[in-house]
């Protein structure tokens, strides 16, 4: 912090040691620390999922007990959702990129940004402390079981409550930064689409997170003080918990996916050498998704006993979400049309995103249809659907970002060929894990079950073998990324976006002089690019 004003040093060299990182207010360092943190939690939760899948190699007990199984799927879900994917792309790449993209030297409240990170660390620690008596409720903490179970629900939910503050403060920081710190000439209709997506995400973080915070406090109140919010014997309603929980957790799905959509909108034009098709449609569809996402939460509750009328209302509105999402997909495809497409590793992950997310999204329509959902609810079909969206969507988007901004972030290049091999393994492995789960679900295999009927064995085994391929691909990807093959230029992908018009890695204060923006962020294949 002391040598904050050293323009010549890049952000990685500007200070060494634990203190220079843990007390930094540099948005880039905070972004990198978030990336490391979510990476560690991703690996932790992934190990849990490998054990879960290994257990399913055969019916009955294979390696772990039924209680350990319940604990592992709860750990997997809670860590993946609250420690990895919700902060995920927004906190890591959002922090790193937004000030660079809007032509600012930092976010508007740098100290608040650091504070958010500390809260994230504290919340994560509290959540992980619960491992002393691990929770077995699933990540959704549904009542009445979460009231009755003897495991450490209070500690986990309190951890999630604390994490919520980190999310809210980061959201506020991004929203105000984008309103107040945009460089001269960077009007809203020139703002990079990643920023639009991060803006929509931030709105959701600020507006939805308080509701889950209060809900979990009510749950703690009920467990600890015996208050009767959700207990019918005391005049409460267990379905009310689901209403409150999903009022946050459905928009949270878009907190997870919207920043990844922003990444795709940045990567595709660069590797298609064409301006993004339908800029305004993509930008506004992010806001439309943020708006509609608040109106569909009841589709998680079709079989909970909620009223038929509200079921029908939620089902109809759910179909409306498909519209802005499809607008994005069609615009990405149209951007590539007749473009000079280069299949780099980052582009491959983005293309896989479109393919897998479309499968995830369209199977969501099955689940949004009332009659189909009665059969598919709580089966492996749902598990497959949400993993196609969350891994096929968000994680592939994150991997695309890690490869695309790798030269900018680290000032080095990775081996493209090896990265493509890793991509191939991950893509194949992922589909072998999760596609059979669609079939298992339609055949009636329930989710979160320790045991299964013998007729499901082949598909379960296939799914487990897929995790091994996926695991090897993931380890190979890490190996590739940790073995850079040389220094990177300032702009190796010839992007016209602002963050590439500076040295790699960026200087501590980003811009010596705040730039004036005179063109669109996506002027590929035009006169502007040729001049640049």
């Amino acid at each position, binding site marked *: 912090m002391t040598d904050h004003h050293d323009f010549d040093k890049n952000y990685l060299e500007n200070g060494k040691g634990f203190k220079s990182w843990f007390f930094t207010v540099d948005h880039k360092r905070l972004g990198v620390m978030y990336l490391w943190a979510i990476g560690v939690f991703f690996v932790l939760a992934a190990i849990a999922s490998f054990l879960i899948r290994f257990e399913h190699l055969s019916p009955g007990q294979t390696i772990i007990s039924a209680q350990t199984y319940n604990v592992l799927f709860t750990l997997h879900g809670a860590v993946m959702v609250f420690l990895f994917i919700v902060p995920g792309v927004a906190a890591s790449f959002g922090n790193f990129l937004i000030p660079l993209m809007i032509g600012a030297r930092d976010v508007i409240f740098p100290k608040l940004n650091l504070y958010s990170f500390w809260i994230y660390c504290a919340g994560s620690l509290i959540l992980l402390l619960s491992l002393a008596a691990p929770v077995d409720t699933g990540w959704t903490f549904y009542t009445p079981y979460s009231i009755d179970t003897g495991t450490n629900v209070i500690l986990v939910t309190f951890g999630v409550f604390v994490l919520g503050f980190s999310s809210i403060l980061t959201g506020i920081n991004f929203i105000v930064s984008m309103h107040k710190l945009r460089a001269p000439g960077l009007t809203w209709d020139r703002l990079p689409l990643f920023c639009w997506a991060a803006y929509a995400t931030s709105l959701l973080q600020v507006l939805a997170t308080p509701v889950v915070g209060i809900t979990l406090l009510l749950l703690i109140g009920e467990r600890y003080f015996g208050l009767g919010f959700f207990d019918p014997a005391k005049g409460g309603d267990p379905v009310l918990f689901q*209403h409150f929980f999903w009022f946050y957790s459905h928009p949270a799905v878009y907190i997870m996916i919207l920043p990844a959509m922003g990444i795709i909108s940045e990567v595709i034009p660069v590797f298609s050498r064409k301006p993004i098709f339908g800029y305004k449609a993509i930008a506004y569809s992010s806001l439309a998704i943020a708006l509609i996402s608040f*109106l569909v939460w009841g589709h998680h509750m079709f079989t909970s006993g909620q009223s038929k009328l509200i079921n029908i209302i939620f089902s109809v509105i759910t179909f409306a979400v498909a519209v802005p999402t499809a607008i994005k997909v069609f615009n990405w495809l149209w951007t590539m049309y007749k473009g000079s497409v280069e299949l780099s590793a980052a582009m491959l992950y983005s293309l896989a995103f479109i393919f897998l997310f479309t499968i995830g999204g369209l199977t969501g329509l099955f689940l949004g249809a009332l009659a189909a959902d009665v059969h598919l609810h709580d089966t492996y079909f749902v598990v497959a659907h949400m993993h196609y969206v969350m891994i096929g969507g968000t994680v592939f988007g994150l991997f695309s970002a890690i490869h695309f901004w790798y030269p900018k972030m680290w000032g080095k290049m990775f081996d493209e060929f090896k990265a493509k091999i890793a991509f191939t393994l991950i893509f194949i492995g992922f589909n072998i894990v999760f596609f059979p789960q669609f079939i298992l679900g339609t055949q009636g295999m329930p989710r979160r079950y320790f045991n299964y009927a013998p007729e499901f064995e082949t598909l379960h085994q296939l799914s487990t073998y897929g995790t091994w391929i996926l695991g090897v691909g993931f380890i190979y990807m890490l190996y590739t990324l940790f073995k850079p093959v040389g220094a990177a230029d300032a702009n190796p992908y010839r992007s016209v976006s602002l963050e590439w018009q500076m040295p790699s890695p960026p200087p501590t204060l980003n811009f010596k002089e705040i730039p004036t923006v005179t063109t669109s962020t996506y002027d590929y294949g035009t006169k502007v690019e040729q001049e640049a």
Partner: protein
Amino acid sequence: MASANPYKTYLNIWLLLMFLTFITVYAAEFDFGALNVPIALLIASVKAGVVALHFMHLKYEDSMTWVFAIYPLFLLFLLIAFSATDIFTRVAN
């Protein structure tokens, strides 16, 4: 902020809040039946509104701040409206 004598305004607002607190306590003495909760919420909302307008300076802010202040109320309305639609139209088996 823009007020000529902010301290006088703050004092008046504080007195108003104290008065509304008195009303809250006084109203709790009576049983209005189904209206118990709506009446308590109405008084609390007036108090919250006065705090937001004056102590939190919303009254002197631009339209963008108003949008950010009003929109969560709309979401709260949605949360209550949809949940209530479920609860009041549920048919017991």
